[in-house]
């Protein structure tokens, strides 16, 4: 299934929760804001967990098709 994820930089506080759950998808830039790695090496379940775990709701996941 195709999916994509975006980071709202204003909401992101740099907690690193997303990196705990999906280290193959997220990293931090120098300001400790999350950035999305492309391509991702995590499975979709891990990315979903990261999105669910983001403490500030800064991550938006879009899943397309079946």
């Amino acid at each position: 299934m195709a999916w994509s994820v975006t980071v709202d930089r204003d909401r992101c506080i740099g907690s690193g929760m997303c990196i705990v759950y999906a280290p193959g998808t997220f990293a931090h830039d120098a300001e400790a804001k999350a950035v999305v790695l492309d391509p991702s090496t995590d499975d979709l379940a891990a990315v979903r967990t990261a999105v669910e775990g983001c403490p500030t709701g800064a991550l938006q996941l879009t899943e397309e098709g079946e």
Partner: protein
Amino acid sequence: MTDLKALDRDRIRTLFDLRTGSNAWSGGDFIDDPHPIWRRLRERAPVHEGTLHRLTGYPGEALFHGLPYPESPHFTVFSLEACEGIYRDPELFASSPNAGDPRHSGVESSMLMMGGAEHRRYRGLVQPSFVPSKVRWWMTNWIEETVQLLIDGFVDDGRAELNVDLCAAIPVLTITGSFGVPVEQALDIREALRDPQQVEALIAPIVAARREAPEDDLISVLVEAEYVDDDGVTHRLTDAEIHTFAYLLLAAGSGTTWKQMGITLATLLNRPELLARIRDDRDLVRAAIEESTRWEPTDPMFSRWVTRDVDLHGVHVPKGSVVHIAIGAANRDPARWDDPDDFDVDRPLKPSLAFGSGPHVCLGMHVARAEMTTALNALLDRLPNLRLDPDAEPPQVIGLYERGAMDIPVMWG
């Protein structure tokens, strides 16, 4: 070179006894298992009127975040969904009763109590030193050496009491080490936690020295940090702001990690077969630590202050109320975890509220995890056949607002 001989065991024992001193104020004499009570409350309704300790049946008064505010109505929230909803709405549920008032001292004036843009600004200054990619920096500079030296201190004895000899000492030495405080003074600092002024006196000379010549440590990060205010003017932190930061890190990072490490070790030592599995498969160390923080979070409650009248899952909560977020109950909500009362390292990894959520989510969570991981791996590497001392009482987890293990008597070889 560090010499941990400077640490006085008896002094550690007094400072880190859940039943005495400041630890007792948070309900240190509570010895029952609160989870069955919390489960019944959560099953009955997500939101209840009253403080968590009163709802739990604790007869006395207890002090913690959000207590006591005798003038304010209190409500406690038990379901994961309701707790997360509160954490993620910081405007309605503020981290301080007096946002905007003149500041108090110590933790009261720290970013823990701030809101909105002000909180983001201060947190942004330290967050880069606490991200996962900085864990290596913490491990090689402070954590690994501390853990090995502490184990050196008892490895030839054949037995130890891990709660004091290891768990209590690692977190305080990690933080004071990152400040550049010598080991001889580390316990002075822990003892001074009751009095921010005294902590300041111990930190001030280091701040002054790092302003002259920065080193590779946390105080140097703070003296060099710059932020831009609303008018676009760049500032550096004042000495007072640095003292407040240092005080918050000590207050938030030393007791919590001590108690969570004790809970983790006690839980595993009480399950020898699981401990043997983990010894042989170190990938499970991470799962065990995550499960420990979910299953028995050391601080099972944090508070928020309600900024306008709100209907919370059918309960009317007036402006000015204190809401207790029952992390310990939410972390066992079957909505997210199957058989939530089981300690199960094989369950799928899912986010819990052990480190809070929302913009105030724990700053030190990756450092805390690194301390616990390093300690558990080192124990398993260096103490063959590590097990509970069969002649002593098995370790027990006690406490209400600050849960932790009592003595953890072990032997090996």
